[in-house]
């Protein structure tokens, strides 16, 4: 039995993001969550492992805050949760994240398939899956809407801009899934209770032969602030629905739209 590894990121929930008066961004009150699209990667790992008889496991790189993610991830079906615990995850760029995850995957060993989402819901940079593949020098297939493992190959359907492409790749391989690949179910009570009993393993950077200096940001961060969309923000205030509609039509005329 080989490992089928679903990678996920514990992110700040963007719904809790607060913008200060000076346009700075306050994430301090944001709750954490498993990045939305990573739930698709976890579900895909669980489903494929059922068919191949392999073991679905999860892997995350996060600070101490990410510890709470393990139970959530395991309630979605995987057998074991791996967590690289490092504060450096908070500032990690795509290079650092894929370097750490690739090193952990090597350390975990005996892997045949690594599943990632296309991108994380905070940065949506879409770098980590292919970055892991490059660092392990294994193939990568992104934009996956479906896949099937047969022996030593995986057949993947990909959604590109103008076509659907079916490719075959040799295992081991990194597959980056699009959200339409599946609909992750909400874990039931039993699954949540069972998750608490599943094994977890905590790794440290030094276990992976890495130090914080290996993870230094490659670009210099100059700004991180609220993006302002310049909109008129006019709420039409007519007394009746008909009045409001009339005002809207008048405004659309004024704008030259109609």
């Amino acid at each position: 039995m080989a490992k089928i590894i679903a990678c996920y990121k514990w992110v700040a929930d963007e719904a809790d993001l607060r913008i200060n008066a000076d346009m700075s961004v306050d994430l301090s009150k944001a709750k954490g969550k498993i990045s939305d699209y990573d739930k698709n990667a976890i579900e895909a790992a669980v489903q494929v492992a059922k068919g191949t008889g392999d073991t679905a496991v999860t892997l995350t790189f996060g600070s101490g805050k990410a510890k709470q993610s393990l139970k959530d991830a395991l309630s979605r079906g995987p057998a074991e949760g791996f967590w690289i615990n490092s504060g450096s995850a908070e500032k990690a760029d795509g290079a650092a994240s894929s370097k750490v995850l690739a090193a952990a995957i090597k350390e975990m060993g005996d892997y045949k398939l690594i599943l990632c989402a296309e991108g994380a819901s905070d940065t949506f940079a879409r770098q980590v899956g292919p970055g892991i593949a490059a660092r392990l020098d294994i193939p990568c297939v992104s934009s996956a809407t479906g896949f099937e493992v047969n022996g030593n190959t995986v057949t993947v359907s990909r959604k590109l801009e103008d076509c659907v492409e079916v490719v075959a790749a040799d295992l081991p391989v990194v597959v980056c899934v699009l959200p339409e690949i599946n609909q992750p179910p909400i874990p039931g009570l039993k699954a949540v209770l069972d998750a608490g009993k599943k094994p977890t393993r905590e790794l440290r950077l030094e276990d992976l032969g890495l130090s914080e200096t290996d993870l230094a940001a490659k670009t210099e961060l100059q700004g991180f602030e609220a993006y302002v969309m310049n909109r008129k923000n006019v709420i039409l205030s007519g007394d009746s629905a008909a009045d409001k509609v009339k005002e809207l039509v008048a405004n659309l005329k004024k704008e030259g739209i109609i």
Partner: protein
Amino acid sequence: MSGIYVYSDNFGLSAALLSLAAQSGEEVCAITLDQDQADELVNYGADRLLVLKGDSPRPESYAKVIAELLKKENAELFLVGSTARGRELAAKTAGYLDCGMVSDAASLVFEVGKIVTTRLMYGGSVVQTEIINSLTVVTVPVGKFEAAKNESKKGVISSLEVKADQRVNIIETSPIKKEGIDLAAADKVVCIGMGLDKPEDIQIAQDLAQVLGAEIGCTRGIAEERHWLPVQSYIGISGANVKPSLYISMGVSGQVQHVVGIRDSRIIAAVDSNDKAPIFKAADYGIVGDLYEIIPLLTEALRNA
């Protein structure tokens, strides 16, 4: 360090990125996998055009080759068009080089000795500004920069025999059925959200769209949870980005993941019953009210306008 390298599997994007790179004053090299594309790109600002001649039709399979080339040439920047293939190629190349990467740059400015980029995060509510001062891979989406033909400058074409990664092979490709939707190109978009009660109610959106000559779009929930419309209809992160002259929504709450896809609309109008819905902060004109009352009235008013 010197030299800006450019690649896209989309011709228009290649041309736009070459024109952007030419603003730097550095030497600009276009990488292509196709002699014909090189011939067509000679007048867009490149000094050199390098045709990689390999044994795979998949651009993604040249990441390692390109990484080695960029290293050997001591490149300072690799600009890649942000298509599905381009993004994978770019991220793998950055991985092989262990260098930085800026995904989907919203802006890129060449300054003395450095490059300043911005990109959006958290579904478009945060803008991150980064300074690049060593080799970095930057992907750029369609439509951010314009191609400018420069007839006075003609790039020199050369070719290089390379070995592609043979571990991923195409079995088949089939065109995506667009089902009549081209949201990205639509001049007007009517968008439905989870505030709509049942699939039959899409009719009121269709009536409005017909009067306006608009395409119908939706939020992710409508396409992926309720399956009321095909996935090509949803707007936002991982869905379509629209830039119509008018975007009008009904029952759309306006979560950031959706709003990022409508940001380039000229005028945004929203109808929703919740006066605190974030869509109103993203809108030019808002009507707080029952969409089942407002939309038919609006359709009627526009029909008579």
